[in-house]
């Protein structure tokens, strides 16, 4: 169970894996996530379900090496197994059949979180524009896959090494200024990026959804660690989300909450690097 069937390096420190999981692949839908625990010492970390193949009984995860768990995961190879692979969790993405045209925006590791939703809407014959952004050319992945599913694909890089120089909002702004309207905009990426998108789309009053990734332990509504402020309400991202109305999300609070364990994360990563001989 939970065997790694495929491993591809998509970009520096960005890895795709297909995991054999009959249960999750049978039940999952776009928008949901899994929790994994790599071994008996491991933390439970949430990862978005980038794609799934019910016939092969696999689930695709894409992750960036940022901490100990993702570093350890990156060192596993095809044929290795992950101890726990739990899900699918969270509420699936609900598409509104009346909506005709969509804009999807992904910054960096947001790409996997928009991919399965776009696939779903493409099958329904919807009009789809996409903006993807990264730090530099090497951080852009899934370009061809997304181009094939979209009417227009815009690319931005912070350093200008590929596509338009700047942030995803620098690409979005002129599109909206030129009068292009969407029934729904979906933005996933770093918190400041989602916040910037929402600040812009609010001016045009275009419904904007975001997918949040707060600190989480159990993923079943039990610990309350993933609580986020949505409008005047407290929601648990694991059971109420992870998709929320971007206009209602308190992004500043989310950013502070997500930074609570940064010191500990660094410590455990350094210890792990020393143990596997990567220490400086």
């Amino acid at each position, binding site marked *: 169970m939970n065997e790694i069937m495929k491993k591809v390096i998509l970009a520096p420190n960005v890895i795709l894996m297909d995991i054999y999981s009959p249960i999750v692949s049978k039940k999952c839908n776009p928008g949901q996530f899994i929790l994994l625990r790599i071994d008996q010492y491991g933390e439970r970390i949430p990862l978005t379900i980038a794609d799934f193949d019910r016939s092969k009984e696999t689930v695709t995860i894409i992750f960036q090496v940022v901490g100990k768990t993702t570093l350890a995961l990156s060192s596993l190879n095809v044929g290795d197994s992950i101890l726990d692979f739990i*899900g699918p969790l969270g509420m699936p993405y609900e598409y509104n059949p009346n909506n005709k045209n969509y804009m999807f925006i992904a910054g960096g590791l947001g790409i996997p979180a928009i991919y399965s939703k776009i696939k779903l809407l493409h099958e329904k014959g919807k009009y789809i524009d996409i903006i993807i952004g990264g730090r530099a050319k090497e951080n852009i992945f899934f370009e061809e896959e997304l181009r094939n599913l979209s009417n227009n694909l815009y690319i931005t890089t912070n350093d200008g090494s590929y596509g338009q120089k700047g942030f995803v909002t620098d690409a979005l702004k002129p599109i909206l200024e030129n009068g292009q309207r969407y029934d729904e905009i979906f933005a996933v990426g770093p918190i400041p990026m989602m916040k910037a998108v929402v600040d812009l789309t609010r001016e045009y009053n275009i419904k904007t959804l975001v997918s949040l990734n707060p600190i989480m332990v159990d993923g079943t*509504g039990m610990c309350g660690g993933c609580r986020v402020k949505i409008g005047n309400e407290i929601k648990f991202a694991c*059971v109420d989300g992870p998709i929320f109305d971007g206009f209602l999300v308190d992004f500043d609070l989310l950013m502070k909450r997500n930074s609570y364990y940064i010191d500990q994360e660094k410590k455990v990563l350094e210890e792990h690097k020393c143990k596997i001989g990567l220490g400086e």
Partner: protein
Amino acid sequence: MDRRKRTPIKEQEPKERINNFSEVCLGYDENEALNEAHRCLQCKTKPCVSGCPVEVKIPEFIKLIKENKYSDAYYKILETNLLPAICGRVCPQESQCEKNCVLGIKGEPIAIGKLERFAADWFRNNSKLELNPKTKKDIKIAVIGSGPAGLSCASELALMGYKVTIFEAFHELGGVLFYGIPEFRLPKEIVKWEIENLKKLGVEFKTNMIFGKSFDWEDLKKDAYKALFISSGAGLPNFLNIEGELLNGIYSANEFLTRINLMKANSFPQYDTPIKLGKKVGVIGGGNVAMDAARVARRLGCDVFILYRRTIDDMPARKEEIHHALEEGIEIIELCSPKRFIGDQNGNVVSLELTRMQLLDSDENGRRKVKEIENSEFVFEADNFIVAIGTSPNPLIKSALPNLEISRNGIVKVDENLMTNIDGIFAGGDIVTGAATVILAMGMGKKAAQSIDRYISEL
């Protein structure tokens, strides 16, 4: 021997035990157990049994201890309760069996819980379980959740010969016994041993399976399951709904205890899951969970204060646990009610504003009411707060079974047989009662098993 006095029980010294997670109560040795058993009057009326939700055959098992038949004593308990090592440790005996003990009228009641624990521990160290379930029936029953209600329902059904599968959302079995109750009150190895015994009865366990997400009732029916018992507990933490509750450093007791008990954050960085605590911690609440959280924080080196709306006497926690907490240097601040959390510019909590409360006369239920004292606000500074004010039923069940009748607070509605409004689906434990005790959940699990047996026979 003074029949009115209870045989004292050995405990780890408070000074020592705040440095470890080992069990606080060390249990009776053979001589002590014999001494205590000899105090039992063997009343014909058995008032103790009527105080027990699963009606453990108390005078009978104590008599067997008296006769040095410890193994027989253990099997006698098993006739009605398959988890004696757990119940002997965490049941609130003082408000159940021991409350009714005749010896308690003029002296101290028999230490029934400690004797139950003795029988179970003796058996664990000296013998191997042999149980003979009835002839196997080829009928599959599913149980959601491996906590006390689920374990007790599964064991009853397995003894009747059913093929039982318990589905557990976590990677460890035991539900609240594992993630909730800390090692020093209920060692994990005890929970594991009791569960191994259930495996010997043929109960099958599947971990990392979330009902309504990984599988559902339709899947179970297709897989030939004939009935379902939902015992997914009351896992959703309640919050105070006051200003500042999303500040960093404020944990629900569930999150705090899960990080430690399930994810072993106390052994960070050997284990990857962190916990972040400063020097001073405030725990809000007065139940067993509040005591557990406070005593865990104490063991992690913190100065711990319990903040409670009423007085120590009104606390719902077991007296023994309150006593243990005080012994361990935890301070209880009575008669104060939280108003708002205050944070710094980085979003970390630094203090809590509270108001003083005053006691009023008892209400019709005999519970003393409290009222805020005007202009009595004060600020309690701490690095962390743990909110332990109760839990609500698991929220996933609602979405898993849209047609299931549920009351407004998330409680699953059941009839007198513990059947829900959906044919073949039963429910029990905290998801039906709201947060309650281990033994109450076990009693419901057992009752549900009997109902399920009747239901199957009428199919």
